[in-house]
């Protein structure tokens, strides 16, 4: 492999500044060559494998939108039978993971297959044109949770999937963000070297779906962490262990105001009530995970 051409990179067709594409590249750096990737339908499949081209330098199989975890179960069993030891890694969108794929994921985790399931969480269905998923944050404007005269966008908070999969007995569960590449790489390495089903959820901003300039992907990703709307943590055997602390937690405005999906909260005027609710979500996250280094939040 040349330096420009890593295990995931060459020839993909993602938008410039695509968070999920960056996630894939970092994930592959971490897993190395000895890996089989199972992918669900979504942006990543489409931008990385337009036949007869592929951006994958490892064996890769697309199955369906919803069955990556079950296909991975079969691959793992097949390898076991043949005495082979490649890492089996699912890389799937939040729609595939939070919504339609839950049955297969739950089954695979309950059975204890030795697989690493990574969700690149761009917080909506991007491939079909920015529809809401169970991972879409409260008040986000999507094409199926549009903001309007009688709506402030997505009416529900994010589903807590890490907790659900930890409750399945997953040995290792972690959240990560493309804005913290080394942390992400370490977590993926930890997951693939931990036996059993493991889960990592990677916050992966989508410039197109969220409405920001592709040069700002890392900055937007960092703001999610700095406001407490996204928390990077690790769970071992169901217990939260390591949490990325934030020194001076920023107000959620800093994150919301740079994305078109929250534009309706600032136009025509500032929607104090809704922004306060989102600030409360961030504060609750901070309290739950002990995010704040300084106990009192800086205004």
């Amino acid at each position, binding site marked *: 492999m040349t330096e420009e051409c890593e295990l995931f990179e060459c020839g993909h067709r993602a938008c410039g500044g695509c968070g999920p594409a960056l996630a894939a590249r970092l994930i592959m750096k971490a897993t190395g060559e000895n890996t089989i990737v199972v992918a669900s339908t979504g942006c990543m499949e489409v931008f990385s494998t337009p036949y007869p081209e592929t951006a994958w330098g490892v064996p890769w199989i697309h199955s369906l939108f919803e069955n990556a975890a079950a296909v*991975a179960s079969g691959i793992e*069993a097949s390898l076991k039978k043949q005495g082979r030891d490649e890492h089996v890694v699912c890389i799937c969108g939040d729609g595939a993971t939070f919504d339609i794929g839950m049955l297969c994921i739950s089954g695979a985790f309950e059975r204890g297959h030795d697989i690493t399931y990574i969700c690149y969480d761009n917080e909506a269905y991007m491939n079909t044109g920015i529809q809401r998923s169970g991972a879409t944050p409260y008040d986000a404007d999507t094409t199926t949770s549009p903001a309007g005269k009688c709506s402030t966008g997505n009416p529900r908070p994010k589903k807590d999937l890490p907790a659900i999969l930890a409750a399945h007995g997953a040995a290792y569960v972690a959240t990560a963000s493309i804005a913290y590449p080394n942390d992400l790489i370490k977590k993926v390495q930890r997951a693939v070297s931990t036996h059993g089903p493991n889960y990592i959820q990677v916050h992966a901003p989508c410039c197109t779906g969220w409405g920001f300039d592709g040069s700002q992907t890392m900055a937007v990703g960092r703001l999610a962490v700095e406001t407490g709307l996204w928390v990077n943590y690790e769970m071992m055997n169901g217990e939260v262990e390591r949490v990325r602390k934030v020194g001076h937690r920023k107000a959620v405005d800093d994150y919301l105001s740079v994305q078109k999906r929250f534009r309706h909260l600032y136009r025509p005027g500032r929607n104090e009530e809704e922004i306060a609710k989102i600030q409360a979500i961030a504060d609750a996250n901070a309290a739950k995970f002990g995010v704040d280094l300084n106990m009192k939040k800086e205004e």
Partner: protein
Amino acid sequence: MMEILEGSHAVAEAVRLCRPQVVAAYPITPQTHIVEALASMVADCKLDAEYICVESEFSALSACLGASAAGSRVYSATTSQGLALMFEVCFNVAGMRQPVVMTIANRALGAPLNIWNDQQDSISLRDSGWLQFYAEDNQEATDLHFIAYKVAEDHRVLLPAMVCFDGFILTHTYEPVDMPSQEAIDAFLPPYAPVNILDAKKPMSLGMYATPDYYMEFRYETDQAQKRAKEVFAEVGAEFAAKFGRDYSGLVEGYRLEDADMAFIALGSICGTVREAIDEMRADGKKVGLLKVRSFRPFPSEEIRAALPGVSKVAVLDKNISLGQKGALALEVRDALYGSGIDVKGYILALGGRDVRQADIKAIADLLEKGEGDQFFGLRTEVL
């Protein structure tokens, strides 16, 4: 060795002899006894396979897809609602050219809920790319598994295969079955030799997305593979006949057709009833015969044409219906006989497990003689 076995157990034993490396299946009546038997074979170390106890049929076939793509011989079994739940994966398995073998214990589809036999389930997947073989009795159900693996895995074919046998009528019936020895099957069916697999030493992408520039060629290739499967089936069936003395070289099988002017055409266990009825009708001087269709996919059009030289009237018996049209087999037989001058009539019968007796077959022969057909047979009169 001759044994008296329940159909399901005969099939499970046949599957064991095929040495699948991964089994993934979910219980559903009337398939359940097959998977239970396989699970206990694994538990007793009689079958050296990974048994994946999946949470649904959808995951069962998904796991088979993954396991096959990673290079193992795999097996599943289902029926009816379970097969319906697999629908999406069925197309994917065929599109990715994975030679998965799956037993279908044929059963009606709801609603209304009905656990009894007809063949609507597998017939509804006829366009998915899977090979479909239908067994008349438990000996044939057993033997078709050996043949199905060999045909499916042949590098000229590389397609998944359904071995279909009628729920309850065969699955739950005890019959004498001549079970081959492991050595004989090992000699007949070599270990799976995959062509393209997921292997970190030889990276390759499988099941990529294909634009209008390429998609059609994939369907064309799969269609070509179906057509090649005809000659491969005939070859494998002939080899089986030479080794085991039971002849499955024909995609169709005739009974008393030599001088027949009227013929029945059907799939599966009903052929047994038709044979008996034919013997009785022959005793009454009627020149009737039977053409059993063993392979519904690939469809043996030429073979059907060739098998009916003196026949002028055909009654096709369908345990399925393409609603608003006719039975699937009747439609395809009519297509195969187009231009032959043979009068083809279809009869929809035995849906949802309704019994068919010899007398019913004779009654259908009478209808055919009168030129009445293309109708449901044996309906309750209050709906008429």
